């Protein structure tokens, strides 16, 4: 248990480091990008009809973009110490307010997508892993490869046309009620399930082929109960490690789906912020996502640790 507490303490230190690193590196990278930042900010504020040199000059004056870099970065850290993430250069709203809406929507979308993918991927993976090389395995592999080969926007449009336009079961796009989240989440889930079903399948196949599993079978356990008793835990470690990763990749992978389904999420906002050189938005987003990531990692560690009895025994 002491080991675990130390590990979690390490994660806390890590969270602090992430905050410093992310804040500074985002700032530097965005400032290093080519192009005049004032014009970019003006373009994202006023749109392509109204961006001109006068607007850019006004932005430059207002934001003090001519100040030394270190001064600007220092100001951001000083604000951060007061838990103030600043104001979006594009919309003029507080970054924290924007993030609470957008990150909230993305988290909702991601969690629903992950739940859908858990219903689809791992069960299929277990089925195919128990009978590797069978026709089901082959079919599932082809399906997974197909889902990975088709970009999310094509899957999304297909789902939209079938489920929302032809059958009229769900709203095409938008935000507001619970029904709007289903289509984008399903679009994401299909891609996720494609990968997680294969990782599960390989892990299960490895367990099934292992000597201790063969031993369990020799003890007279049926396939299913041998797997439940001995296989499930072992097979789930790589799967959980992978899922922890997926949730993070997911949050950034949602950008296409968010754009397609008009979902006010963070992926979409982040890309716009980078393109529009909205530094406080980029920093704030990256910071929160970094912290979220550290949190997820801690949770993944915890789950893997709890699931691996031998490791527990070996180190106790």
């Amino acid at each position: 248990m002491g080991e675990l507490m130390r590990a979690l303490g390490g994660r806390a230190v890590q969270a602090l480091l992430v905050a410093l690193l992310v804040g500074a590196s985002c700032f530097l990278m965005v400032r290093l990008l080519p192009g005049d930042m004032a014009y970019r900010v003006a373009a994202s504020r006023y749109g392509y009809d109204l961006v001109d040199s006068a607007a850019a000059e006004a932005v430059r004056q207002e934001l003090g973009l001519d100040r030394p870099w270190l001064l600007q970065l220092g100001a951001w850290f000083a604000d951060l110490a007061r838990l103030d993430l600043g104001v979006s250069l594009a919309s003029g709203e507080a970054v924290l307010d924007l993030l609470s809406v957008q990150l909230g929507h993305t988290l909702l979308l991601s969690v629903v997508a992950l739940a859908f993918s858990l219903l689809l991927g791992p069960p299929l993976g277990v089925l195919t892993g128990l009978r590797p090389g069978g026709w089901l395995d082959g079919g599932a592999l082809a399906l997974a490869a197909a889902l990975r080969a088709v970009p999310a926007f094509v899957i999304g449009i297909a789902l939209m046309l079938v489920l929302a336009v032809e059958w009229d079961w769900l709203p095409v796009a938008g935000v507001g009620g619970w029904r709007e989240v289903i289509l984008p989440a399903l679009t994401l889930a299909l891609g996720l399930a494609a990968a997680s079903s294969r990782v599960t399948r390989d892990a299960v196949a490895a367990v099934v082929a292992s000597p201790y599993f063969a031993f369990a079978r020799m003890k007279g356990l049926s396939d299913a109960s041998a797997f439940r008793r001995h296989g499930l835990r072992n097979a789930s470690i790589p799967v959980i490690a992978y899922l922890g990763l997926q949730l993070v990749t997911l949050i950034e992978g949602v950008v296409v789906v968010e754009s397609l389904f008009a979902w006010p999420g963070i992926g979409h906002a982040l890309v716009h912020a980078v393109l529009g050189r909205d530094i406080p938005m980029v920093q704030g987003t990256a910071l929160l996502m970094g912290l979220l990531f550290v949190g997820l990692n801690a949770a993944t560690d915890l789950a893997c640790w709890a699931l691996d009895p031998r490791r527990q025994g070996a180190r106790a």
Partner: protein
Amino acid sequence: MSRKRLLGGALLAAVIAFALLGPLHGADPLRQNLSDTLLPPGGAYPLGTDHLGRDLLARLAAGARLSFGFALLAALAAAVPGILLGLVAALRGGVLERLLLGLADAVQALPGLLLVVLFTAFAPGEFLPLYLGLALSLWVEFFRIARNGAAAVMARPQVQAARLLGFGAGHILRRHLWPEVAPLAATLFAFAAGTAVTTIAALAFIGVGARPPVPEWGSMMTELLPYYAEAPLALLLPAILIFTTVLGLHLLAGRERA
């Protein structure tokens, strides 16, 4: 060689043959004909034309050389260091493992998409920075799979016994770690190559990435998306090629007995 590997090899060979033989058809992948747009396959255009009346066969073949090469490059650039570092971390443990884990976290704490978008912003329209940014965010996935898989193996009694008996790291790596990690890594590799191409499509979709008129599978799909109802085949042809590539890679790289 197993039947599966044979099939995988055949699929890959088909894509490579397509890339090599496609240009023999003789059409220029950049030549437009605005009166022949979105034609179905047939006649002078074996696979039809796109929204600017360009020959799809020529474009797909030209794109194959680009996409195929870069996708493999990006996947390799991510897989090799990722797996090696993962195995080293599990084998050595201690400070080195913690350092590497910290590095992986640091990279991953920066959203991968942000990395790719930032990389492309430095050299807009170039493919190399795009794939480099991609490799930089993909390697972590390989690292974690390798390290977690290997760590579980290291805790097994037979491995600990081997260590007590004085077998070297090389032996443990060959006999115990590699067989465990390889199939997972192979799965990831095949998918990472596919991800590389679809990521380009995604970037083009959000308005970042390729410089027209370069034929590349990912950006071709984005360009053709608005015409999904008129020319669904044109939109899906690049996807079919990516599918064949991913499946072929997967079968070829997969474990013999599985």
